[in-house]
């Protein structure tokens, strides 16, 4: 699959956050690999028809979090995985994500087994090797 960003207006997710989420997802699912170049801020802004500051903000956040690296004058690339978060912080973030997932799933009346099964199925879609810290 080719990497593409699709944004929607009128959502309760701000546009810059939609871009951040989709880039993160594309990397996690393997649509973007380490070293891949992203379109420039200007090009992506033109394609999405949004203010370039919005795209720049998304890219800045991704660079800050170590997801992308910006090479001066060349643009933004998918960074080699280096964890900018401490183990405790990684745990905390994982826990927050799991809390949202489980409460949502249980409120929707899924059983524990069904939830575990769905998570396992989702994981099958992602590359398996553990990232080097």
């Amino acid at each position, binding site marked *: 699959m080719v990497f593409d960003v699709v944004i929607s207006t009128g959502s309760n997710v*701000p*546009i810059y956050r939609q871009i951040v989420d989709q880039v993160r997802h594309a990397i996690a699912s393997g649509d973007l690999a380490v070293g891949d170049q992203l379109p420039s801020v200007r090009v992506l802004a033109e394609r999405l028809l949004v203010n370039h500051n919005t795209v720049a903000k998304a890219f800045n956040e991704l660079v800050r979090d170590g997801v992308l690296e910006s090479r001066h004058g060349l643009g933004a690339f998918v960074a080699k995985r280096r964890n900018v978060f401490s183990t405790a912080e990684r745990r905390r973030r994982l826990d927050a994500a799991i809390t949202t997932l489980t409460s949502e799933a249980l409120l929707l009346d899924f059983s524990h087994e069904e939830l575990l099964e769905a998570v396992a199925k989702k994981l099958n879609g992602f590359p398996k090797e553990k990232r080097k810290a």
Partner: protein
Amino acid sequence: MSDTVIQTHGLTRVYGQKVAVNQINLTVLRGSVTALIGRNGSGKTTAIRMLLGLVPPTRGHATVLGCDSRQLTPEIRARVGYLSESHFAYHWMKVREAAAFQKGTFPKWKQNIFHGIVDHLGLNTETKVGSLSRGERAGLCLALTLAPEPEVLVLDDPALGLDPVARRALVEAMLAVTQHRDRTILFSSHLLDDVERVADHVAIIDQGVLRVEASVDEFCSRVSVWRLTFDRFPDRLPEIPGLIHTRFIDNQIQLTVANSDDGTAALIASIGANRIEQTEAGFQQAVIDYLTVRGGTGSLLKAVGVPAAERETVAVVGG
């Protein structure tokens, strides 16, 4: 070069008994794209016309590029592009004559920009302005406004009457302007999709009062929606500071609140709902909730952190 391009101090306009614009303090920074949002008749056009010296303020004043708006010099005017709501152009001129006429008042005139827009919209330069459709005339006015590459663009409802192609062209044209860091746009619009794409600052005006002045990001992060689910509705809701809007949906009450803090959370917890969820409102929802409510004075939300004004309590009828 100053960082403030437009500034108003207590800008007020009274027509007879009606306060059309009520003590507006607005700051527009260089390089920003500010959307002025408000319902019809809320005072947007009057405020814009005062900025450009077309209507004298009853009280207060405004400066544009450091010059008092009542004494704008031709030199300053040439640096400001204004697109009026009525999309005025002389009906007896041909399209190319309108361009030649406009060119006379602007020392910097880029004929290629004018033709770029006019060609894109499929306008014939030999057509009389009077026989253009409303949308075509809007497109012509946009081209006339953009061709001098003004430092400051003031667009009063530029999307009014535009067809989908012209509307897309308008958004693209505004985005192209934002590529230049030192060019500034102030525009009013009812099209929140376009505002979300283009604007980085938002000013919400309701019944002549400026209710919100903030960056879009700050605005979104400061307005949250609390969704409360009940078995039985309470008889009354407590007075919640910063409450913008209350909505009843089935067994739920949805509260849109500005500047939620721990106090807000405690108050909302005291209502006794079975379940409480808090989410970000999202830009469009927040705007609409601000404009839906009636009454209330003062700006609830300011970029500079002015505390929430008091709002009247909403009494709840039992479910």
